[in-house]
């Protein structure tokens, strides 16, 4: 097995009850003792239904949230132990593409601003001046299949699929090696979804990216990912090679989930 890029070790996360207007709510266990390893260059799929803890795990990997216990290692380094400076450097190497292409782009910024922002923030690593950043933004846009003449436009002028491409271009701007893909196609129509999925595959091949792909759509995961983990109520239920999981699920939950997924097959 190739070198692990991301290691998640026994991560748990409990949300303490919030004090509401009329009293306290109970604490919620969002993640329970989750352990996963993502190897370099692979596409790792994380499948779960709503409320299963997918999003909490993503946010924890990005350090947007602190796990209650456990470690998240990036290339063997514990992210919780990093200095703010090192953490910032690290952020250049882990990037994310969000589910909702309409909400994830700042409506007040131009495409150029959006795509160059990571380069600006990480200019000490990327090392590009203003003009070079602009050139690179144009390059990134054509890489994701958009014309560089669109740099001056604002997000609202684009369709959903195009925005998702912009989101991908932004994620690539700081030259990351690991991309977290948080349901990047679930808000898109099937025809557009197919385009974006193909783009992702193409980019992975071209840029040697590692994907951590989160989805509730089994078909998409099976299409894109080499390894899959199922998460349910904050716990990893089953993990393994994609084909193995789909063809011979070991757990009851996995079997239910796979059989429930509608497929374009004529019922007998």
């Amino acid at each position, binding site marked *: 097995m190739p070198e692990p890029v991301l290691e998640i070790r026994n991560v748990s996360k409990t949300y303490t009850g919030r004090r509401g207007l009329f009293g306290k709510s109970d604490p919620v266990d969002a993640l329970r003792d989750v352990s996963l390893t993502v190897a370099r260059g692979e596409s790792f799929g994380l499948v779960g239904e709503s409320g299963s803890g997918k999003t909490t795990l993503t946010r924890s990997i990005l350090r947007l949230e602190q796990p209650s216990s456990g470690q998240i290692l990036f290339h063997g380094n514990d992210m919780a132990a990093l200095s703010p400076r090192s953490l910032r450097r690290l952020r250049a190497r882990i990037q994310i593409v969000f589910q909702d292409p309409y909400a994830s782009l700042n409506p007040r910024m131009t495409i150029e601003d959006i795509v160059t922002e990571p380069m600006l923030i990480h200019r000490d690593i990327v090392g590009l001046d203003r003009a070079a950043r602009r050139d690179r933004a144009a390059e990134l846009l054509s890489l994701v299949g958009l014309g560089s003449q669109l740099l001056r436009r604002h997000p609202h002028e684009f369709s959903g699929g195009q925005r998702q491409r912009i989101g991908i271009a932004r994620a690539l701007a700081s030259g990351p090696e690991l991309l977290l893909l948080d349901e990047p196609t679930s808000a898109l129509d099937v025809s557009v979804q197919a385009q974006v999925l193909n783009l992702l595959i193409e980019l992975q091949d071209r840029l040697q990216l590692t994907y951590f792909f989160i989805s509730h759509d089994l078909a998409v995961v099976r299409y894109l990912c080499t390894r899959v983990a199922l998460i349910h109520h904050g716990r990893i239920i089953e993990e393994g090679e994609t084909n193995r999981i789909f063809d011979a699920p070991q757990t009851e939950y996995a079997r239910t989930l796979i059989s429930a997924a*509608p497929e374009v097959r004529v*019922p007998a």
Partner: protein
Amino acid sequence: MGEALLQIDDLHLTMSSFDGLAHVLNGVSLTVRRGEIWGVVGESGCGKSLTGLSISRLVQSPPARYPAGAIRFEGRNLMSLSQREMQALRGTRIGMIFQDPTTNLNPTLKIGTQLIDVALAAAHHDSSILSGAKGREARRAARALAVRMLEQVGITDAAARLDSYPHEFSGGMRQRVLIAMALIGRPDLLIADEPTTALDVSVQAQILALLRGIVADHDMGVILITHNLGVVAQTCSHVAVMYAGNVVETGPVAQVIDRPAHPYTRALMAAIPTRETRRGELQGLAGTVPDLIRPPPGCRFAPRCNRATEICRGQFPAMTPTAAGHSVACYHPVIEREVASA
């Protein structure tokens, strides 16, 4: 095959907006019989939902206008009914279920109250629903009916749940309540607009199974509006594929999915990854849905179609039967037997 329950005939719908007049529905035709579950599929913005709402005459007018077409429900043209007459049909003859179970229930009223209100309203037009009970008795009868309906859609401890508020239910349960509400007036036609899109796959499967069971029990016609071909394949008996305000292909599910004749249907299916699709071999569909204010002449799919020729850009192709019950609106349909995106 029984008599047509619903017959939509060349329905046109326009919407006026800042940019101009949008031709949202452009001659939609569809026939639904009792016992049939029709899946209406297509990408977002192709007019699926507006077709459903038009049947119940629930599209705000203005800005909407119906320049042409008819919707016949058991032979009566709904387009010529007054709102009052239409209201008598809603709930009792035509039921509806919408996409988002969280927003479709009134958050400030108990589940029971909402069910009973619908039952009473329905009984107003069809007294047999509460077996002719009046006044107080009617209320009691409506309550009993509500309990029965909840039990029927699979809610346990139904009598106690009547006093709960919507926010105390999970998403799947709420959708069950909405189905119960739609069915309490014993409609003959049920229009379900993306009833499972907001739900998880496992819940989706349950709800779809429930729908299938109900149709079998009640001998009703169903229109299931969805963007998910998988759902159609799993649930429906017939399917109508819509593109940019037109129905481009109709037929029994087995026919259409096995042998899609319209290039658009084929493209849609090719875009869905299946067990057999290999990595990197998914077929995308280039381009986007056309601008409905200035639609392309002729076949609206022509600009994205790899089979398009000169004729396609001239006039819209008429629906032509290709096999029993299977029709397609295309000058160059794919007739040969083959499996999509092998």
